[in-house]
Each structure stands twice: as C-alpha cells, then as structure tokens.
C-alpha cells in the first residue's frame, strides 16, 4: 500500500523524471536488442531496424506502461484536457462560435425559464396555496366579473359551507403619517380579522387583529408591513404597542408582518397597487347598512375546506347567490358569484405571453444545439484523417473516445460557465425591466434547476456530436481514409448536416414570424391615438388628510374645503414659470381605476328595479379638457363657474353620446343619479383610452369636482408645461406645501412615462421575442455559413476542374449559392407550414393584426432568404475566386 502511495506521488509530482527514465529504459532495450542482433551477424543498420521492429513502436509501449501506472486515469485526463484545449485553440473561430452559441442558448433559456417559473410555476408563497380561492361578483347578463359589495361579502361569509375562512380586503384607504418631518403617505388596506390567518401568516412581531377589533369604533389598530417598519420606523423593536398619528387620529400598532409576506395579486386587483404599508381592520357593521350593497370596493379571498373541490364550492356559492337575488333584487338581481383559484386568477392573463416566450426560447436552444451539432460535424469531417492516422498508430478506440469526450466536455463546460454568467447577469437586469404589472415579478431569482437542465441538454449535444469522428472510423480502414486525404465525406453525414440547417432555418422562420407579428402589433398599439395630449404633461397625486373629507353629504362645509384647496393650489401652480395650464382629475386616463354611476335620462321611461344604465364617471376640475388635450366636440367644457353654487352640469364622451343619443345632440339634455337633482349635459368631449391603448374606449361622463358628492381624497393634478415637465416638479412641491404642508405628494410622472408604462407588457414580450428571433436568425446564419464553407473547402478541387474545363466564376458562384438556396428554401417552406400552425396560438397577444398577416408572412421569408444567401455568398465567392491551378494542386 505504502509503495502504491509512493508510486502515485512519484508519478504525479515527478512526472517528467519518470517519463525520462521510461524513455531511457526503452531506448536501452532497443540498443541491447540491436547489439544482440549484431552478435548474431546482422549489419549494424539492419540490427537496429530489426530491434525497432521487434519493439513494435516506442510510443505504444510507453503508452501501455503509462496506462498501468497508479493514477493513470487522472494523468490521462490532464493530458486529454491539455490536448483538447490545444486542439480548440488551433481553431479559435470554431471554438468561439461553439462556446458563444452554447452560452447564448443556455443563458437565454435559463433567464426566460426563470421568469416563467417564477411567475407561472412556483407555488404561491402560502400554506396550502391550492386551497385559496378568490371570489368575485359576476354580472349574470354580461358575464363581467368584478369586486364585491361589503353587505354581499357579509352574507356570503355567513351562508357558505365550503370554506374554512372567508376574508375581504378593501385596498383603498391610505394613511397620512404625521410624524417628524414631511408628511408621508402610506399605502393602506382594510382587512377583515381572518385575512392574515387565511393565508397562514404569522406576525414577525406582535399579533394579528382580534375579532373584536374588526368592529366599527374598535378598529383604531394597525399592522405594519415589514418594509414600512424598516423604512418608516428604522425597525424599532419597541414599536408594537406604541401609538401612531395617522390621518390626524391615534392608532395603536399591534403587529408587524414578516418580511416574506407578499399579497400576490394581479395589476387590476388593487388599482395597480402591488404592496401595502399599513393594514387596519375592515370593521364592517353587523349587519352592514344596506347602502353597502350598492358599492363594490372589496376583494374577497376564501380557503376551501380540506377535500372540497372547487366545483362543490361553486355550487354552494350559486345557492347563496340565488338567495340574494330574491332577497335584494334592487342590488343583486343580476349578481352571481364566481370562485377562481388564486394561482389561476393571478397569472391567467400572462400565461399565453409567457408560454410564447418559453416556446420561443426553447426554439432558440434547439437552433443553438443544432448549430453545435453542425460545427462539431464539420470539425469531425476535417479530423477524419487525424483519427485514421491515430488508429493506424495504435490508439485504441476507447482512448480516442475518451479524448473526444474530453473535447466535447471542455466546450460544454466553457459554454455552461458563460451561459450561467449570462443568466446571473441577465435575470436581475430583466427583472428590473419586467413590466411593472407582471404578477409576482418581485419574487424572481435565478432558477438553478433550469440552468442545470439546459446545461445538460447542451452538454449532451456537444458530447453526442463530438463523438461523430469516432463513429466515422468504425468501418473505414486507416489506409482508405489516408488515401482519400480526408475527402469524400459520407453521404449520410452530409444529409444530416443539411437536415440540421433546414431545421434551423425553419425554426428561425417561425420565431421571426412570431416576432414580426408582435412587433407589428406593438407598432400599431403605440400609434393608437390615446385621445389626449402626451407631450409636456406632468401628473402628480396628492393625498388630502381626512379633515377635507366631505362624508356623503353634498354641499357641506368640508366639501367646500376640498374645492378651496384645489382652487388655491391651481392659482399658485398657474404662477409657476413654464406652466401653461393646470387642472385636477380623480382618475387619470390609462389609469384603469373606475367608478360607475347608474343614471336616468330625462324624458325616458324609468327602468325597473335592478336594471340600470351605468357608466364610469370622472370628477375633474375647470380647465381639465384644455389642459390634458381632450377635445370638446360639442357644447363646452367646465369653467370656474361650475361650482357648488351653480347649476349641476355634466359632460359626456363621444361613446356615451353615441350609445345613448345616437345621432341626436345630447347637449342641453338632462340626466340624474340616485338623487333628485337633474344635471344638464353641457358638452360632448372626445373619447380617451382609460383601460389601456388596446382596449376600446367605453362610455364615460365627466363631472365638475365641486359638484361631486363623496369625492376622491386623492386627486391627481395635471400640468401642461411649456418646458420639460420634470423641471417644474420642485416648484409644484413648493406650491403644495404652501397651501397645506400636511399634504403628501407622490406618483409624480410625465404623461409620456405613463403611456409607456401602460404598454409595458406588450413592449416586454415584443422586445424579448424580437431579440430571440434575431438571435435565432444569427445562429442559423452562422450554421449555414459553416456548412457552406465546409462544402466549398471539400470541393475546391472539383471547382478547379470545372473552371479548367471552361466554367466561369459566375457558374461556380451560382452552383454554390444554388446549394445554399436549396437548403434555405426547404427550411423556409417547412417553417411557413409550422408558422401557420403556431400563429393561431398567439392570436390573443396581437393587437389589430391578423395572425395570417400577409405582409409579415411574405416579408419574413424574404428577409430570411436574404440572410441565408448572404451566409452562402461569402463561401461561394471564395470558391469562385480560387485560382483553378491552385485548386487543382491543392491537397
């Protein structure tokens, strides 16, 4: 044993000396044999020759000695590695292309799969997330699903039998924190007492809400998010139990949420809010007053009882809904209930988009693998002679296999390493650029399983195709290979390479078609006229403390307080140099926030109970239309006289005019809401996109701020500037502080930014798909170039002969290009067929573009054909330029 260890040490650490001694020993053997042969009477030269013949090859003997040494495997590996690196360094072009292709394939795949798995596949971060469902009110007549009335929630919770718990969140209430320094707005939510226990959350500090705190008058308690605890209170350990001054009232902190709690939602759930800083009990009255059946602020969650399938829960809910329909026809006649598993609800809208990206990136990986295969095949063909020579010199097949494997592994390892680095860099970069409304985006981190998986696939490709040279030597005798001089590739291999190219071109074409359709959609999307001005508009949101609140009474003193604040602020803002005009609105266009009112039109039959004409309304101040650039088509916009003391007025948009008045002129007509007062229609204004550029505008009406009861406490101020919008921000802050230093201002953005943000998802998927398509085309072009170069180099002599017997350079050029064109044409034809099957699947992601868009389906093949011909042209020109005589002598 000790001898073995000593031998191992000697072999490993004094390898050179051991080698030298081996060399000398065997030389000595040969000389001794030669000397003996001379003694037998042979001439010195003959004696030496006979001795050599007797030895049977110096290197083979040495090799066999090395193989028996202790540590031979490690030694061989090191030598193979060294050889592999040297072999790759001799072909830096090949090595670079192979490694870069692998790295791109692995990196891109891991990155996208990471995003997809983060959003779609990873279980939600709650205890038994499969049992959590979201509940929605459904309009039976239209099928539209929406948020829930508090009184309905109260009845659902009391009447259902399928759920362990049911809880609601009102995502609306914000809190103004009056502490030291600037007032801060904290994003708030009111939740029923069961809310956190439904998700299985345990507080990081303090406790959950108690049932008795979930009652009106007892709810002056708050739970803080971990982030707010850190940022607003520096993580003070003694905060629990302390009182906070919020909205000019005292609240006691009872608990701190854990840092990993995240209310998974989709953008539309909470009016684009994704996080909440502060939570307070919902405190519904028991039972709630009846008006709470006509307002719909709540999102409702429920946890299914163990073993109850969702279908049974749905039947349970249908029964409750039927009861409510008969019990409260005025509000609930048209109302059903829909249960949707939380996971499906959250990612439902983005599933198609992400699946498309996944498919695209998978195709990129296939193309990359095909490219690796092709490159290694080219190289294999070039190494046929080398392999044959080495077999002839006595290398065993296993030895060659080991060395080729090492080469494949080196390629794969370097590719994987670079690919991992790529993914590590790309995932955070991508997460930063993910559309803000992509659900769960904040949870994303590099998925190591994905990295491992793609790396294995790529490594397997490298190894399988790396071993081709060995397979080639299986029936070819050494002599044959050497005589042919490495020419005369097997027909089968050439077919395989052709097939790989065809596949690559086809896959690239499918990707390009998809990307083309997406790009065209996106282009059409951003060219949609939003219906308002986007340049030189600054918007900012204010949060008015509750002392401005007007309750539900209209025309009270407090109501005037808001109007006075707004008028005062607008006066100051108009004085800021560079501000052309300014106005308020409760809800910005593209914001997606809706508030609807039922109305009756004067002179038309009164609707039966439970049937309404409803449209969304937007409270705006005087000068709003002029400021934001919504055209007034008939009548007038609002001016300063449309206040509490003057006649009630309303302006409607074009869609509403068309829907309710047809060709008649609505200006001068009157309508009223639940109250007795009639409002005169004073103007018709242009449609503005509110849900998004891709959603058609819906009927809307505008009311003067001063004439809206229950008005929004978080108005948005809109400024039209003559200068760069960002340059007036500090003056705006100063103006707000001048009117009331307790009013926080946030969500400051230019209208351009808002518009750009609203198309974030579309831009993201278009950009990523386009990047993949270009990558695919690039990689496929490299593949085609590689194959054509190789074919040209194989046929140099043939071209020489052709030219010698009278073919022109043009003939040769055409011959080579024709071959490239043939491969490309087959690929394009197959790709078009595949694209025809695939485009249907992405139809829902397209905007104003048919899946079979003729321009795209015609343009993409032309583009791809051009790239393919270029990739073929370079080697073709090389072939045509060759001097016939050189070509003939070449060998």
């Amino acid at each position: 044993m000790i001898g073995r260890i000593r031998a191992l040490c000697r072999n490993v650490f004094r390898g050179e000396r051991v080698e030298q001694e081996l060399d000398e020993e065997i030389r000595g053997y040969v000389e001794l044999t030669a000397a003996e042969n001379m003694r037998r009477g042979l001439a010195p030269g003959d004696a030496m020759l006979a001795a050599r013949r007797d030895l049977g090859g110096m290197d083979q003997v040495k090799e066999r000695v090395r193989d028996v040494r202790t540590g031979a495997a490690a030694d061989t590996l090191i030598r193979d590695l060294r050889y592999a690196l040297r072999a790759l360094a001799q072909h830096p072009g090949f090595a670079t292309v192979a490694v870069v292709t692998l790295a791109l394939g692995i990196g891109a795949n891991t990155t996208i799969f990471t995003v997809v798995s983060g959003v779609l596949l990873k279980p939600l971060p709650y205890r038994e997330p499969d049992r959590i469902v979201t509940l929605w009110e459904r309009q039976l007549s239209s099928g539209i699903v929406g948020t829930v009335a508090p009184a309905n929630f109260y009845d659902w919770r009391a009447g259902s039998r399928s759920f362990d718990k049911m809880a609601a969140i009102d995502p609306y209430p914000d809190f103004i924190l009056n502490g030291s320094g600037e007032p801060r707005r904290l994003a708030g939510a009111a939740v029923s007492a069961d809310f956190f226990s439904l998700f299985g959350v345990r507080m990081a500090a303090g406790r959950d809400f108690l049932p008795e705190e979930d009652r009106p008058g007892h709810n002056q308690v708050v739970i803080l998010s971990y982030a707010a605890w850190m940022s607003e209170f520096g993580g003070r350990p003694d905060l629990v139990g302390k009182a906070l001054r919020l909205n000019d009232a005292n609240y006691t902190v009872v608990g701190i949420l854990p840092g990993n709690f995240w209310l998974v939602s989709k953008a539309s759930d909470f009016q684009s809010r994704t996080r909440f800083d502060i939570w307070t009990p919902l405190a519904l009255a028991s039972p709630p007053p009846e008006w709470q059946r006509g307002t719909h602020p709540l999102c409702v969650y429920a946890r299914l009882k163990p073993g109850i399938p969702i279908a049974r829960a749905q039947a349970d809910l249908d029964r409750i809904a039927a009861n409510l329909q008969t019990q409260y026809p005025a509000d609930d006649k048209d109302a059903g209930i829909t249960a949707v598993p939380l996971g499906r609800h959250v990612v439902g809208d983005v599933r198609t988009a992400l699946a498309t990206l996944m498919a695209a990136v998978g195709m990129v990986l296939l193309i990359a693998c095909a490219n690796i295969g092709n490159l290694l095949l080219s190289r294999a063909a070039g190494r046929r002679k080398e392999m044959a020579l080495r077999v002839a010199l006595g290398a065993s097949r296993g030895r060659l296999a080991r060395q080729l494997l090492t080469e494949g592994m080196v390629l794969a390892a370097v590719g994987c390493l670079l690919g991992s680095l790529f993914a590590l860099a790309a995932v955070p970069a991508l997460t930063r650029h993910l559309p803000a409304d992509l659900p769960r985006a904040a949870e994303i981190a590099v998925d190591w399983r994905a990295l491992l998986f793609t790396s294995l696939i790529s490594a397997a490709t490298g190894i399988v195709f790396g071993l081709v040279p060995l397979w080639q030597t299986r029936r070819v005798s050494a002599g044959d290979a050497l005589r042919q001089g490495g020419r005369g590739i097997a027909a089968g291999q050439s077919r395989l390479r052709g097939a790989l190219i065809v596949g690559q071109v086809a896959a690239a074409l499918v990707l390009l078609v998809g990307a083309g359709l997406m790009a065209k959609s996106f282009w059409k999307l951003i060219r949609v006229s939003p219906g308002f001005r986007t340049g030189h508009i600054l918007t900012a949101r204010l949060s008015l403390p509750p002392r401005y609140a007007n309750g539900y009474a209209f025309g009270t003193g407090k109501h005037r307080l808001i109007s006075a604040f707004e008028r005062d602020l607008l006066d100051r803002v108009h004085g800021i140099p560079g501000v052309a005009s300014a106005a308020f609105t409760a809800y910005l266009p593209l914001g997606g926030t809706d508030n609807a009112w039922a109305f009756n039109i004067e002179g038309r039959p009164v609707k039966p109970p439970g049937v309404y004409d409803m449209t969304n309304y937007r409270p705006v101040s005087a000068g709003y239309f002029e400021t934001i650039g919504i055209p007034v088509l008939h009548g007038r916009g609002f001016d300063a006289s449309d206040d509490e003391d003057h006649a009630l007025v309303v302006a409607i948009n074009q869609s509403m005019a068309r829907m309710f008045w047809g060709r008649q002129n609505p200006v001068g007509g009157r309508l009223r809401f639940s109250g007795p007062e009639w409002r005169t229609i004073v103007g018709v204004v242009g449609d503005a996109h509110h849900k998004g550029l891709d959603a058609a505008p819906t009927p809307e009406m505008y009311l003067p701020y001063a004439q809206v009861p229950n008005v929004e406490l978080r108005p948005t101020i809109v400024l039209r500037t003559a200068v760069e919008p960002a340059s007036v921000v500090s003056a705006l802050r100063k103006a707000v502080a001048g009117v009331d230093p307790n009013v926080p201002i946030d969500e400051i953005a230019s209208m351009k930014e808002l518009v750009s943000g609203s198309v974030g998802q579309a831009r993201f998927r278009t950009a990523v798909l386009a990047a993949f398509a270009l990558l695919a085309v690039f990689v496929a072009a490299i593949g085609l170039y590689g194959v054509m170069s190789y074919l040209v180099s194989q046929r140099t002599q043939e071209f020489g002969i052709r030219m010698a017997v009278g073919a022109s350079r043009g003939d040769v050029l055409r011959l080579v290009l024709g071959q490239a064109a043939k491969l490309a044409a087959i690929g394009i034809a197959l790709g078009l067929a595949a694209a025809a099957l695939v485009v249907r699947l992405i139809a829902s992601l397209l905007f104003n573009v048919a899946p079979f868009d003729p321009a795209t389906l015609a343009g993409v093949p032309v583009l791809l054909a051009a790239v393919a011909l270029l990739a073929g042209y370079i080697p073709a020109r090389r072939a045509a330029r060759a001097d016939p005589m050189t070509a003939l002598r070449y060998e």
Partner: protein
Amino acid sequence: MADPQPELLQGTLDLLILKALALEARHGMGISRRIAQITNGTFEVKAGSLFPALHRMAEAGWLVSSWGESETNRRARFYRLTRAGRKQLQAESERWERISFAMASALRAT
C-alpha cells in the same frame, strides 16, 4: 501490433518475470531472454507486454529497480525481487502447480 495472447499471459507473465528474477537482478531485455531460455523459447515476451508488467509489479512492491551498467556498458535499469516479490513467487508457483496439475489430470481423463 496487438499482443497475440494477452489473456493467457495475464497471470502467467507475472509468474514468469518473478521466476526470471529469482536468482539475480536483470534489465528488461535480460528478463525477456531469460524467460525465452527457461521456457525453451515457448514464450517470447515483447516489450509492449514486458514493460507495462514490470512497472505494474514495481508499483505493487514486488520489484525494485535501480540503474546500473549492462554487459555492453550501457546504462540500463535493473530489476530485482523484494521480500514481497519472493513471497508472491512462492504463492504464485504453488497456485500454478495446482492449476497445471488439475489441468493435466482433466485432459488425461477420458
């Protein structure tokens, strides 16, 4: 150039080398000649089999080598048996005798 009888020689070659070195230290060619001599020329051990076996046996601790001068005044590596090598020779010889006796009686049986 493959060895004509590698399987046969696997166990036999070791024994032959040990036997060849039983009396005195020899260099590679000396061992080869000695084996040819003591087997009446039946086994001619080629370098491709001899040297791997010598190195393997040296690493197993049966042989040690040292550099010396050959009969033609050339530097050569001489191998000799260690104590372990002698034990191995003893054990292998007994084993081989048992096998050859068994084989012989098996072949004589009718």
